[in-house]
């Protein structure tokens, strides 16, 4: 059991931990800053791992199981690194009505992946989003942060192919 409540040392010498520190400091290292801090960790490192959990838990004095419970409750948080490219299929109602399922199926078949997985060569991660709010352009796929509207299975496969060959 941990009895030492002095400031914990970051998991590594990586300079980026300073950004995490700054985020936690902004909230006075209060336990309620947990979600904000996890957001910062994910935006800095791309995902959340055990080292980060331990460091955040110790800094904010939140139990480990609680940190893990929070991180897995919210689907925005990733516990594994993303591939080089990400393909996020919107599964909102408008996109569903306009055929998001077919797009998803085409991608799953082509990449041999299920949502949330990454190709073995670490090139492409396939994900889904609840609704990116661009329903007017449905069906929508977010390709590496770029929102692409009026998508079709053929168009999406073409772009994914280009990634894989690059």
């Amino acid at each position, binding site marked *: 059991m941990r009895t030492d409540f002095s400031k914990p040392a970051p998991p590594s010498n990586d300079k980026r931990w300073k950004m995490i520190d700054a985020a936690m400091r902004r909230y006075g290292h209060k336990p309620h800053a947990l979600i904000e801090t996890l957001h910062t960790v994910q935006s800095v490192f791309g995902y959340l791992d*055990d080292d980060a959990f*331990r460091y955040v838990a110790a800094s904010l004095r939140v*139990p480990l*199981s609680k940190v893990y*419970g929070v991180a897995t*409750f919210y689907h925005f948080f990733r516990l594994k690194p993303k591939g080089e490219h990400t393909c996020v299929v919107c599964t909102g109602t408008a996109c569903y009505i306009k055929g998001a399922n077919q797009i998803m199926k085409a991608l799953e078949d082509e990449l041999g992946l299920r949502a949330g997985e990454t190709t073995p060569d670490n090139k492409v991660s396939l994900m889904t989003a609840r609704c990116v709010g661009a329903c007017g352009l449905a069906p929508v796929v977010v390709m590496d942060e770029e929102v692409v509207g009026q998508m079709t299975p053929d168009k999406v496969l073409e772009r994914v192919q280009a990634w894989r060959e690059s």
Partner: protein
Amino acid sequence: MTPSSRVKTLTIDGRPVSARSGETILKVARENNIFIPTLCHMDGLSPVGACRLCLVEIKGSSKLVPACITSIFEGMEVSTKSEQLDKYRKMILALLFSERNHVCSVCVSNGHCELQTLAQTLGLEHVHVPYLYPVMDVDASHERFVSDHSRCVLCTRCVRVCEEIEGAHTWDIMGRGAEAKIISDLNQPWGFSESCTSCGKCVHVCPTGALFEAGKSTAEMTKRQFLPYLSLMRGEKND
């Protein structure tokens, strides 16, 4: 405030009863030997109103309320039994049985399980919703205790006792919805938990055979009650 103004009168199942202001329906009912089924509730732990078995009807309200968490008020008319409540309670139990793998006949807690007893008390003799048969782990890494997720009903008593009484907060829930699962620390094997004090409180508040002492075989696991005394002590202090 005069002492008398803190006393309220109400009826439960038509029986007039008196209670202190701020008390829950469940507490008053139990004082008067009126049975309301519960599963997630445990005296001495904070109430969560999660299992929904203790739902009761209140005259004048179309919504069912959880007895474990709803405070009484003057003139309240509570019904703890009705055809509808009976149906709902049985369905909720049926859903719990269908959710994981409760194989009572080979469970360590057979004969000492609150879920099993509730099914018998409420007359649930078969589960009419399809069983889901999920694949669940057994964690036997702890030297004294075992956790079998097949038997877990996610009542969170272990989480609460560990946080509120032991102060270790080893347990919590990960994931959500049907994927929710109790975890120790960073979802690591219980035996490797850094925060667990091996006090065993979680094992003894677990209503089913999800947490048990290592070495116990079918029907051998009996649970000790220790929290009622604690809540008595606290209750006296509060008065």
